[in-house]
């Protein structure tokens, strides 16, 4: 039986959420995995709450539908807490990654999530320091790599990020993204 990891992303349009999901898929592909990455399409306006999905599998992915019961939920923008049902459908043993200055215990309490694992990281703080802009999605991949240990490694994600951003951004901006990603990878905390 094939192994599949299903990830749902929550953020706001313009924060690089879709790109992050695609970069993760690309990194997984370089490790020989299959993937799907797609957003939920609504009215596309900057700042609107959006969802995106990434599936990673060691076999062909047949299902073509939104992820209803994610293994992993990534909350790119903490101001969605209380606005969007972030833990909807998450598996009891699932993992929640939140961009926040708060601790995993505080997040658990705010979201009423007692199962699985919670990782937190101040991705916005890191993004503001390294990129001077609140675009924390890509660097959260550093946390996804730790949370989904063994599936994709940091090196692959860094490579995929360089590849996906390389075509669009100046080299120093790409490297700042990589630096931010590595910082998120080492600074995130589990609880």
């Amino acid at each position, binding site marked *: 039986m094939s192994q599949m990891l299903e990830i749902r992303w929550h953020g706001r349009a313009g924060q690089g959420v879709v790109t992050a999901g*695609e970069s993760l*898929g*690309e990194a997984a*592909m370089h490790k020989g*995995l*299959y*993937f*799907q*990455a*797609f*957003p939920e*399409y609504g009215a596309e306006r900057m700042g609107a709450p959006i969802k995106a999905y990434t599936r990673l599998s060691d076999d062909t*992915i*047949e*299902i*073509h*539908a*939104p992820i*209803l019961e994610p293994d992993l939920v990534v909350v790119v923008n903490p101001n969605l807490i209380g606005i969007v049902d972030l833990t909807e459908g998450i598996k009891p043993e699932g993992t929640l990654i939140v961009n926040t200055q708060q601790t995993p215990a505080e997040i658990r309490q705010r979201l009423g999530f007692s199962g699985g694992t919670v990782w937190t990281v101040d991705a916005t703080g890191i993004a503001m320091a390294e990129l001077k802009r609140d675009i924390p999605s890509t660097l959260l991949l550093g946390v996804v790599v730790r949370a989904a240990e063994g599936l994709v490694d940091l090196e692959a994600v860094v490579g995929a990020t360089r590849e996906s951003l390389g075509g669009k951004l100046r080299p120093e901006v790409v490297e700042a993204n990589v630096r931010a990603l590595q910082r998120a990878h080492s600074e995130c905390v589990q609880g």
Partner: protein
Amino acid sequence: MVASKYMPLDGANAVSQAMRQINPDVVAAYPITPQTAVVQNFSQYVADGIVNTEFIPVESEHAAMSACIGASAAGARVMTATAANGLALMWEMLYIASGMRLPIVLTVVNRALSSPLNIHCDHSDGMGARDSGWLQFYAESGQEAYDNTIKSLKIAEHKDLLLPVMSCQDGFITGHGVERVGILPDEAVREFVGSYDPEHYLLDTDHPVTMGAWDFTDYYFEHKRQQSEAINNSMPVILEVCEEYERLSERPQPILDCYGMDDAELAVIVLSSTAGTARSVARRLRAQGAKVGVLKPRLYRPFPAQQIVDCIKNCKAVAVLDRAISFGAPQGMGPLYTDVTSALFVAGISGLPIVNYIYGLGGRDTTPPMIESAFADLRVIADSGDRGDLVRYLGLRA
């Protein structure tokens, strides 16, 4: 066999890659909405000099297909792309392309037709063109969209066919969804499609011909009969090209994708991306002991009628899922259902309970629980022998 290189591509980009590798002589397309990234990417290849295609950006899809017809009649290898209302606007010219037996390949990213205004996936556009004399493939994934596009060109240009081909995939779901897609080496694709050497073309001034001529009550009828026969007899060529491509790519290229149909009691027939969702559900149900199957026609025109009948004739109940409504057909059934049921009738099979589900119009998500509910309905129908409602809906608000 040659190894594919894996790339992270959305379905539209996968088709652009196929077009880049084919490097057609002419691509004429309308460059803005409802156009997709297929043409956006391809026009970049043209601008960058990666292909030497003559790219003609035109003022409408009607003009796009007109330019394709002119170029193809002149002797060029021609491709284009469209979606939704764009395909609808091509309608008049679709018939002219097929009537003139011009082997144009049109890649379609299936999207809903207005009104109300909607740009998301359904099959109203492609199904509206199903009687236009074009062959039609429907793809489950970006990978299939890539593979079907390459096969479509070789099928279209085969000397025994000279029929235009539409290669369709689901808007947004695969069109915008990024996945791992295996791309053949450029040389392998070029060798597979070969060069296009038409026997009759307008620029062959040593052998002048007239195309699209006035055809009155005297011969129009005979020419239409010939056109119909060409499509009716196209299956051997289609199968031959699919098999050749399968050997090249080492990816299965059935015209009818069957899962669990050897002993299925309950079966779902569905096109494109939802077939994958249905199959993933069927695998789970099979693991629990349910004898279920999924049938996905990858080729819709010509309709593989006998093959479908052979697959489902021993089932106890069958559901046909349609992502379009054939308005005014009995109870508003869908086009795939009318085709499947007429195939059964022609084969003399009348006792098989078979119901129709309309699903996913305007991009409505079609989730595994919806497919499970269809299989559950089929169980009830098979056990009770009561077919119940002919036309049903999946994911429709109460």
